[in-house]
């Protein structure tokens, strides 16, 4: 087990190194001089030269990359000229909103996906099952931003149940803030519930055919106990895996949802950084979000190995 953990961590480091390289390269393939692009048309040649020196752009690429890695290791993500503050700080200020949004969306996706998936598996082949599988396919085909806009139009604009946009005033209570996040979380959660539903269904189907489930039924246990206690427990591992994966996907999906509802989160920061070509912010956000993505995937794999005694590496 320990050997497996160490090996997986090593693999993760290798992937992160390549991720860092990709992030590094993306900001360097920009047509033209990044310093000139960042300063805009009004910049004097002296300004550009000064910024080039400050960003280390005059060094050879390999040296720049090593410097960049050194920065990352010390958790220094660079400095945003537009925001006039370190990138790490800008990300941290907006992390709360995106974390809440993602967690709520995960909650919604799980609350839809797991129960419907279980019902669907138990009613396999019947109308309920077919409707559930069809709805899952439909949910996976709707752009989250469009769900967001539709919800906003009918539940926030036409009916005043939810705030239209934003995160409330700075002194808003936690409850008020979460209220602002309900519609965005639903918009983000619905499309992502589809994968959870389908995995739950498949995983339950596999387990429901097993001998011990038949034994439990033969003992005369009620359906509820057989399904929830005997079957679900054993079907849980793949379901947990896919919940982990969807969580990682939703962190990125939050970028789009935050834009719909003008929420000042990490996603909003990324989009405005792209629009004004604020490369330090783009790089920092890319690195942090994909880092989280890799970490969550690793955690899921390790959890998998820890929970299932049959898995030995």
């Amino acid at each position: 087990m320990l050997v497996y953990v160490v090996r997986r961590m090593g693999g993760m480091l290798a992937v992160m190194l390549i991720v860092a390289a990709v992030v590094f390269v993306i900001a360097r393939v920009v047509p033209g001089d990044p310093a000139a692009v960042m300063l805009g048309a009004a910049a004097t040649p002296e300004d550009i030269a000064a910024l080039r020196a400050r960003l280390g752009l005059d060094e050879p690429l390999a040296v720049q990359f090593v410097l960049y890695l050194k920065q990352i290791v010390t958790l220094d993500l660079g400095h945003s000229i537009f925001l006039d503050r370190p990138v790490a700080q800008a990300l941290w200020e907006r992390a709360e909103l995106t974390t809440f949004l993602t967690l709520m969306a995960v909650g919604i996706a799980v609350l839809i996906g797991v129960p419907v998936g279980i019902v669907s598996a138990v009613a396999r082949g019947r109308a309920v099952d077919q409707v559930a599988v069809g709805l899952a396919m439909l949910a996976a085909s709707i752009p989250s931003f469009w769900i967001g806009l539709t919800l906003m139009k009918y539940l926030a604009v036409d009916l005043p149940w939810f705030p239209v946009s934003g995160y409330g005033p700075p002194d808003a209570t936690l409850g008020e803030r979460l209220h602002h996040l309900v519609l965005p979380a639903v918009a983000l959660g619905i499309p992502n519930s589809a994968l959870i539903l389908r995995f739950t269904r498949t995983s339950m189907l596999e387990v429901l055919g097993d001998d011990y489930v038949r034994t439990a039924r033969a003992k005369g246990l009620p359906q509820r106990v057989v399904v929830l206690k005997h079957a679900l427990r054993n079907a849980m591992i793949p379901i947990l895996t896919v919940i982990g994966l969807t969580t990682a996907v939703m962190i990125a999906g939050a970028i789009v949802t935050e834009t719909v509802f003008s929420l000042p989160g990490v996603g909003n920061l990324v989009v405005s950084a792209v629009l004004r070509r604020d490369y330090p912010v783009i790089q920092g956000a890319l690195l942090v979000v994909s880092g989280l993505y890799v970490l969550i995937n690793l955690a899921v794999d390790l959890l998998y190995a820890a929970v299932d005694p049959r898995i030995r590496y």
Partner: protein
Amino acid sequence: MASLPAAGAPPAATGSAPGPAPRPAAPRGRSPLALLLRRLFRRRMVLVAAVLLAAIVACAVAAPWITPYDPMKMAILNRLQAPGAAHWFGTDEFGRDVLARVLLGAQLSLLVGALVVVVATVLGTAIGLLGGYVRRLDGLFMRFTDALMAFPDILLAIAFMAALGPSLFNVVLALGIVYTPRVARVVRAAVLVLRELPFVEAATALGASTPRIVLVHVLPNLLSPIIVQATFIFAYAILTEAALSFLGVGVPPTTPTWGNMIAGAQQYVRQADWLMLFPGIAIVLTVLSLQVVGDGLRDALDPRLQKVT
């Protein structure tokens, strides 16, 4: 992803379809294509989705015959008219006919999706074949695809667009690269199996060169998994393109892709909800039918592939 079990489904569920008798031996006189279509359309939903998809493509192509309006022509006096007899889908903030624009959007979205599929399939197949056949390249290629897959789709696409700048061509390039690893992985996995099979050994024994074995013997056997992947990538590409355009980092806003239309509709949500409704429905129908057809193809072409994607 799972799908309805093909063989074990209870007859009650399949409705009018004939009972799943033990699969008959291949009927004589049928081409492989006819066989495939028969297996594909055994599920009624797949047939419905395929017809819908064909209808969407037909509408996109036949746009000028469906509506007399020019999608780009402004008529300020007619602005923000609700759907009615003159304008079936209403008009937008410049008085342009929304139906005409949704149809133009269909052409653009289908074009982007198709081009992304071409880029991802060509690159992915090349990488997968080389990786599966040339040991020394395999490790490098797989680390590369690992790293690309360590980014969520939309984030990687945004990053590429940030570097490349907004244009239709760049969207195709960015999404093509984003979806290349999916094809590469599937192709590599299939190649690793295929290269050990007796027919490859036979070809080697007959003295065929490696390039010949790869192109003549292995590649045709990869068609099924590639087609299945291509269908799903088509669907994802349409979704991701719409999201990129919506964010303002995709196709420039003057080009009416579905995503751009929805982005433009945002500020008129209060008075004109049809502006966001119709392009949204168009996206959902297109992506949904592609996914259903993709699912059907996966079941029809190779039941063993059910776990892929």
